[in-house]
């Protein structure tokens, strides 16, 4: 069964450093998403991406964040200058059509 994959599974970084989280969505999917989940809190939407551009983004997704689909398979989230409060699980999701988003296993980001 096709699945969304994410790398790395755990990323530790120093405050102020840049991080890139990588996702490989399901191959024929058209919509791509990033969500985050701070420990013990709800899953929060960050950004959606369709047709090679951002289609929707939340207040969390400020100028420190960017997304890219550099080739036909990868979908990346970059955090330019990490802050302590960026520590969370980051989930990538993808959707072909309809209403069922498939989530990856997540990357745990720890900012020290």
């Amino acid at each position, binding site marked *: 069964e096709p699945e969304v994959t994410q790398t790395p599974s755990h990323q530790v970084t120093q405050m102020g450093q840049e991080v890139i989280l990588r996702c490989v969505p399901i191959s024929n999917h058209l919509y791509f998403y990033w969500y985050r989940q701070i420990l013990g809190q709800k899953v929060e939407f960050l950004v959606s991406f369709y047709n090679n551009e951002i289609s929707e983004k939340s207040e969390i997704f400020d100028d420190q964040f960017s997304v890219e689909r550099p080739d036909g398979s990868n979908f990346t989230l970059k955090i330019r200058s990490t802050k302590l409060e960026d520590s969370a699980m980051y989930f990538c999701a993808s959707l072909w059509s309809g*209403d069922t988003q498939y989530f990856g296993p*997540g990357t745990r980001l720890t900012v020290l």
Partner: protein
Amino acid sequence: QKEVEQDPGPLSVPEGAIVSLNCTYSNSAFQYFMWYRQYSRKGPELLMYTYSSGNKEDGRFTAQVDKSSKYISLFIRDSQPSDSATYLCAMIMNTGNQFYFGTGTSLTVIP
């Protein structure tokens, strides 16, 4: 007011019990409703989705949507220890839009 409200629990039931999980929401524009299961340190896994009001059954799981009350439910029959997880409700307005999640309800099924 939060878009989606969900009792975080924790909820603890004996094996074989019927479990009822619920969410309420405030925005009447939501049209599609989902239930996800999330095991510790894993990504959410889709269980059920429904469009508009009504019931949908899949094995031991039944999802109900009451749009007039802005209330959705997930019932688990004959609960098993393997059902122990956090259950997240989610909803969207239209295809491709962002999902709005509840906080999740932590369920433990005791053997």
